[in-house]
């Protein structure tokens, strides 16, 4: 008769009470795992989204991130191609890298004069092929909402804009059916740069080479006004090939992507082109701390004396950290509440068991069982309840998670422009599973500790009097 078997039989004596306690643990653990899985999906999903767009690490000129985004010319990285080659070819860093690609970010005003509208945009000059490779990165196997950048194999004047930008510029034909959009009155008369409606002074500033008349996509042509390296205004006539949903509304209302060479021509004209960032996407997020010091060393050796810094995706996307911290604090609060409920429920169950079995405790001690044996017996009973609770709780959480994941439920988070699937990552998140299970078992043992100690410290003769 092992302690474990004796403990099991004692649990089965008062089945209703044991079952009620077990249910509390199962429901509690299921709730923790489901919310944890939901948090996990949001965290891994947003991490994946940010890394797909910004990479794990970016090399920038010092101060650019804080102050330079309005002035790309002042924070350009020279000889970036050679630097990128050094990074790719480095024996330590190279194997960690999934993609290395340059980017030039600048602000501008996009105008669609045929519709008499304009708006500020944030322009991303990119290598479209490399960006599309980055968008396929999905280390954690989450549902990815990234759509391929429709610039690959497109003409030099092609741009992709956020749907918010397209709506503001009244590019209604590029928007999904049903999305509200005010049609411009004279849309059909629009032509590319040099249109009759384009102010003459802006047309004169445009350095974009003329697009042959009758290009067919004239309805989607816009002009972009940006500041050149020396502060002079520069204009490009561009063709919007796609309006894409950027997920976050603030970004969706500003986003514009174009070929890197186009963006460089706008900012640097005929001068040597530069970029504002070198994006590095790793195979594994966990390698960030390994890669960063090596990148710093390489920048110091081959950076050409430029004051360069390395930022990770958390620094580049403060929203990720804020969202993570919010979800973590919510999870911690819920887990703590459930832990306290389980603690008191199980503690009450064990205390009742000690009171009811006082005489048996005396008998066992009289027969020669040590105090530690009594303590072990009650802890064992709690542990058995805990084990049953975590097994059933994990199974219940997996079942409910499967139901939720197959329900197709969606919601649009505050500040987002996309309805995301409600998904719960329980089975795929081993740290969540192990943490919740061990936490629940810890609470179980903690709740049984005091009753077990009280049982073990009883005087034998006093306990026997309860017969």
């Amino acid at each position, binding site marked *: 008769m092992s302690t474990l078997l004796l403990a099991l039989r004692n649990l089965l004596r008062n089945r209703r009470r044991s079952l009620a306690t077990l249910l509390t643990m199962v429901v509690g653990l299921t709730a923790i795992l489901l919310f944890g899985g939901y948090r996990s999906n949001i965290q891994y999903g947003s991490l994946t989204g940010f890394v797909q767009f910004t990479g794990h690490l970016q090399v920038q000129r010092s101060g650019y991130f804080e102050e330079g985004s309005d002035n790309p010319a002042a924070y350009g990285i020279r000889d970036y191609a050679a630097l990128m080659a050094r990074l790719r070819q480095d024996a330590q860093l190279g194997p960690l890298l999934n993609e290395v690609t340059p980017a030039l970010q600048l602000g501008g005003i996009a105008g669609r004069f045929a519709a008499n509208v304009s708006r500020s945009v944030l322009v991303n000059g990119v290598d479209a092929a490399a960006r599309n490779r980055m968008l396929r990165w999905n280390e954690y196997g989450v549902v990815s909402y990234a759509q391929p950048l429709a610039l690959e194999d497109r003409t030099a004047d092609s741009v992709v804009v956020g749907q918010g930008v397209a709506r503001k510029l009244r590019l209604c034909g590029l928007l999904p059916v049903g999305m509200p959009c005010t049609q411009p009155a004279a849309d059909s008369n629009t032509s590319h740069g040099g249109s009759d409606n384009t102010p003459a002074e802006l047309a004169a500033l445009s350095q974009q080479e003329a697009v042959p008349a009758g290009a067919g996509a004239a309805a989607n042509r816009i002009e972009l006004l940006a500041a050149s390296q020396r502060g002079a205004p520069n204009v490009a006539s561009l063709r919007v090939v796609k309006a894409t949903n950027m997920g976050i509304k603030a970004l969706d209302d500003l986003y514009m992507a174009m070929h890197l060479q186009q963006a460089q021509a706008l900012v640097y004209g005929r001068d040597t082109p530069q970029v504002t960032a070198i994006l590095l996407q790793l195979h594994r997020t966990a390698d960030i701390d390994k890669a960063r010091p090596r990148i710093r060393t390489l920048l110091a050796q081959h950076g050409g004396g430029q004051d360069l810094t390395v930022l990770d995706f958390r620094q580049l996307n403060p929203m990720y950290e804020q969202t993570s911290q919010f979800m973590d604090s919510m999870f911690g609060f819920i887990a703590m509440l459930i832990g306290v409920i389980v603690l008191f429920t199980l503690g009450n169950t064990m205390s009742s068991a000690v009171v009811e079995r006082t005489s048996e405790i005396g008998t066992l001690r*009289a027969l020669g069982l040590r105090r530690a044996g009594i303590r072990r017996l009650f802890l064992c009973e709690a542990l058995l309840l805990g084990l049953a609770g975590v097994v059933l709780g994990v199974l219940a959480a997996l079942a409910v998670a499967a139901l939720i994941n197959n329900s197709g439920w969606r919601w649009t988070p505050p500040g987002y422009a996309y309805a995301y699937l409600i998904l719960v990552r329980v089975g795929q998140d081993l740290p969540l599973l192990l943490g919740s299970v061990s936490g629940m078992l810890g609470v179980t043992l903690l709740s049984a500790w005091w009753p077990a100690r009280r049982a073990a410290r009883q005087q034998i003769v006093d306990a026997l009097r309860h*017969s």
Partner: protein
Amino acid sequence: MPTVHLVDVCKTYHLDSVAVPALSGISAAIQPDCFTVLAGPSGSGKTTLLNLIGGLDRADSGRIEIAGQVLDALDDDALSDFRARHIGFVFQHFNLLPVLSAYENVEYPLILAGVSRAARRQRVRDMLAAVGLAERMDNRPGQLSGGQRQRVAIARALVGRPALVLADEPTANLDSHTGAEIIALMRRLQREHAVSFVFSSHDAQVIAAADALLPLCDGRLQSMQEGAA
């Protein structure tokens, strides 16, 4: 050498601020292979003395020696181990563990004493057969009569081959016929196993079966008498 040697044993209970003397200056020796009864009215100190002899409680002063071991010299764990190996208990309310079968109840002291599984199986079966419960070994206490439960308790007390078995009013919860059977059984087993039995009882049947009588009154030993069983 006596199985139990008591020298000037005293015990006082404290109820709030009131001191209630339970035993005063008890000195006695209980010989091996004896059927000894602590007799006396309620409140005379029988159970207190039995608890002290069994190492279930500590005396305030005096010396208690069981099978050559001074109990005061043992810490709590050592005292538990000593009980497991040298003392058997039979309680008034039987005190069987309700979740264990008769077999498992008898087996439990052997597990505590570290006896191997094979040896346990043989000894438990033999013991249950000796008390006439070979056919009921799989029954739990709730499925047994009062007399059968006390038989299981006697088997449990004897299975570890202790030097001493202590029985606190073992027939108090039994009818007179069953009580007589239990006394006869214990007497037989005491002789067969050559073990000392010490009872607390005011049951005339038990007293009549005693080899020795320790009469207690108001916590004091009156005089030691030899019985004739």
